[in-house]
């Protein structure tokens, strides 16, 4: 724990940008969790109402992001959208880790025929361009939040499997693993207690980085019409919906678009800093520089 907080401190010292990233991500997560309780117009956010008189209102104090073609408050819908993006980001990366980690771990540790078979399967998935594969899967599975998450994680897990595999193959030959084996520990115990914790770093960094990409790709799927259900206030969908009236009511598409931009940027800034802090080489160079002055 102490090392974690010292790392965060180090991060902040190292670059102001990572602090910005941290703020954005924290804000996004809090908004995502609290959205249903803090939106000014909960019914608008859930899409349960419409208001003929309030249609296409430009941004004002009452509606900071204006209103859409149904007279719903865009601000509320964008806030609520954070929740869906959060679910998607966590869901996609979580599910992909859930598949990728066991595959990479077993393939790397067991090796041999089982290992190469698992890795060939992984390579097969890697052969497809990820977004294309996700579009094809999403189109086959049909619309819906859950289906979108599945489609994206299936195109995602091979990256984690491969990353972990490479790491595990080198870690399993390290002396501490040998000593664990000599102590008579079982295979599973060695794999999960010794190999896995020592191989997880690159995957963790990658996972943090991918949160942003998952949001972006989910928005892309919705924009193309194969993502979440049409009445969901998902950001990509909000951008698409506003498209039809972009020439007279730009705010309907602009604000959800900005939300995507800012959130994805936040995740990337944060992940970059995280990667640097966990990469001993960069850290050493930075430290040397600071010492040398």
């Amino acid at each position: 724990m102490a090392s974690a907080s010292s790392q965060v401190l180090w991060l902040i010292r190292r670059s102001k940008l990572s602090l910005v990233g941290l703020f954005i991500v924290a804000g996004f997560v809090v908004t995502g969790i609290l959205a249903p309780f803090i939106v000014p117009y909960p019914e608008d956010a859930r899409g349960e109402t419409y208001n003929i008189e309030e249609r296409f209102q430009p941004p004002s104090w009452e509606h900071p992001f204006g209103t859409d073609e149904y007279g719903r408050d865009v601000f509320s819908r964008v806030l609520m959208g954070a929740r869906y993006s959060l679910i998607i980001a966590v869901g996609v990366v979580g599910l992909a880790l859930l598949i990728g980690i066991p595959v990479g771990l077993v393939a790397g540790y067991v090796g041999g025929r089982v290992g190469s078979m698992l890795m060939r399967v992984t390579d097969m998935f890697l052969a497809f361009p990820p977004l294309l594969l996700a579009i094809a899967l999403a189109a086959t599975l049909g619309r819906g939040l859950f289906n979108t998450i599945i489609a994206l994680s299936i195109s995602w897990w091979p990256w984690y499997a491969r990353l972990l595999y490479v790491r595990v193959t080198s870690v399993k030959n390290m002396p501490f693993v040998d000593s664990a084996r000599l102590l008579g520990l079982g295979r599973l115990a060695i794999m999960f207690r010794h190999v896995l914790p020592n191989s997880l770093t690159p995957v963790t960094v990658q996972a943090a980085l991918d949160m942003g990409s998952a949001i972006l790709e989910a928005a892309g799927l919705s924009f193309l019409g194969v993502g979440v259900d049409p009445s969901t206030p998902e950001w990509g969908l909000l951008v698409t919906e506003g498209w039809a009236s972009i020439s007279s009511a730009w705010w309907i598409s602009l604000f959800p678009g900005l939300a995507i931009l800012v959130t994805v940027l936040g995740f990337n800034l944060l992940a970059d800093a995280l990667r640097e802090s966990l990469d001993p080489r960069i850290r050493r160079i930075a430290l040397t520089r600071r010492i040398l002055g």
Partner: protein
Amino acid sequence: MGILARGASRTVFVAAVALVMVLILVAAYLATRPSPGEAPEESPAPTTPAETTTPAQTSPAAEASPTPAKEEKTIVIYASLSEMTTADPSTEFSNSIIWMPLVYEPLVWYDPLEDRLIPGLAVEWESSDNGTVWTFRLRENAKFHDGTPVTAEAVKMSIERTIALGQGAAFIWDPVDRIEVLDDYTVRFYLKYPAPLAHIAAASYGAWIFSPNIVKYAGASNLTDPKVADWFNQGNEAGSGPYRLVKWDPENEVVLEKWEEWWGWREPGYEMASPNAPDVFIIKIVKDAVTQERLLLTGDIDIAQYVPLENVDRFEKDPGFVVAVKPSFQNLLMLINTKKPPLDNPLVRKAIALAIPYEDIVEVARAGVARVASGPIPHGMWGHFEDFTYEYNLEEARKLLAQAGYPDGIDRTLLLVYTAGDIYEKRTAELIKTSLAKIGIQVEVRPMSWEEQWSLALSGWDNPEAAQDLFIFYWWPTYITPFDFLYNMFHSENTLFNLAYYQNPEFDKLIEEAVLYEGYDRERALSLYYEAQKILYEDVPAVPLWDSVDVRVANARIGNLEKAINPAYPTTIFAQVLSVEG
């Protein structure tokens, strides 16, 4: 450390993508204001005549005309939302209707708003024997583009080819038993049963007359040889109309050129011709309304098929543009699965009909550019009656639902399907969902591709439980008759489009009888159609939602725009009646 490089470049990439998205949004907004010198991104290859054309007509479009122009040619560019389909006048049953009525002529044209037939290739026609024998007298000065005269023999051959191929709209000729050539310019049809053949001959599909030489041109053995269709689809035509097809690029543009030898240009007082018709008429495919609007504002096109409906009033106020608003015979209905409980109970269906906010739907989905439907036959068409609109009354709807045994609403979520990508349907669906929730009916809205949607619906005939509950659906007629609507969507034998799975022998009998009177006793037919629609109103196999109104926006130099639109030939702009300032 591959991750390092990948991570860093990915950050840049993601940020760049996001930035580009925002820039596109801003650009799209700014671009709707006229800005000279801006190149439209949708433009096809730079060698097309459309590209070299400016609305000011300062440069003669040399490529568009094979012969040297004696003076500057007038060019009009019309943006179409959809790609062209086929070019065979016998079988085409889709988007090519946008140009076929300019290149080909039927025996008769029909103006449905005045319920009046207009002479085409035929000058006179009469029916006898209770509408079972029809005689058409042809004009003697009409020629096909290849120079051969339009004779009774050519008419017989054209219609017989369409019937023999049996595709597309060939079914309109079902009543025809045989066709007889009386002399060079007189043709007689003998029917199996009474039918309004003059109206059928004015159909929007399958009624075109073409040159008998096509077999020779195509190097085919006979009229139904697939080589003939291939010849058409390579961009050839054999019509007799005011324009010739000079360029056929179905995915990008179709170029039509005025044919000076058309009989109509010289016929004094002929209503389907204008002395200032454009010399070149280009149909350019521009696939979304926002882009069409932008191109119209920058002057890259002259007529837009669609602009975002919310912006129509902006164009109406702008003296630089003209807006033509005409009824269209396309309507939107919601078909109810009458075989799946609890929707098999007419009380539940009636409750649904009363819980739909029709006025609001027209306002939100169509920005007010439509009319609340009254029965399945659209406004302006014969057979339409004003007393079939459902009242929006939640109290009454709840009462009916309680009476049907569902005082607390329905305990399962109904599935409503619509065609993905259609924003009018989407907005309609959204409002229906919101409103039905108010009487305790939960609806799941699901967009599907048309093929998916249709195959799911077709499966409902065998297994109604597995099919959708509610189906949002457009209909428009092939030729203008109430029978087209009533038979296709509600007759028990039509398993292709009766997707409410409605079966009512009494209704079937009424419309089968009505159609026989159409040809010679319109009053009788009307009263039978009224009875039939009354049954539908009570039974509610479908809820008619709105009747579409067509809006075309054009540059102010385009005169007679309103006259050039005829709801019997949807999407067509009759260029021959336009009056264009040079």
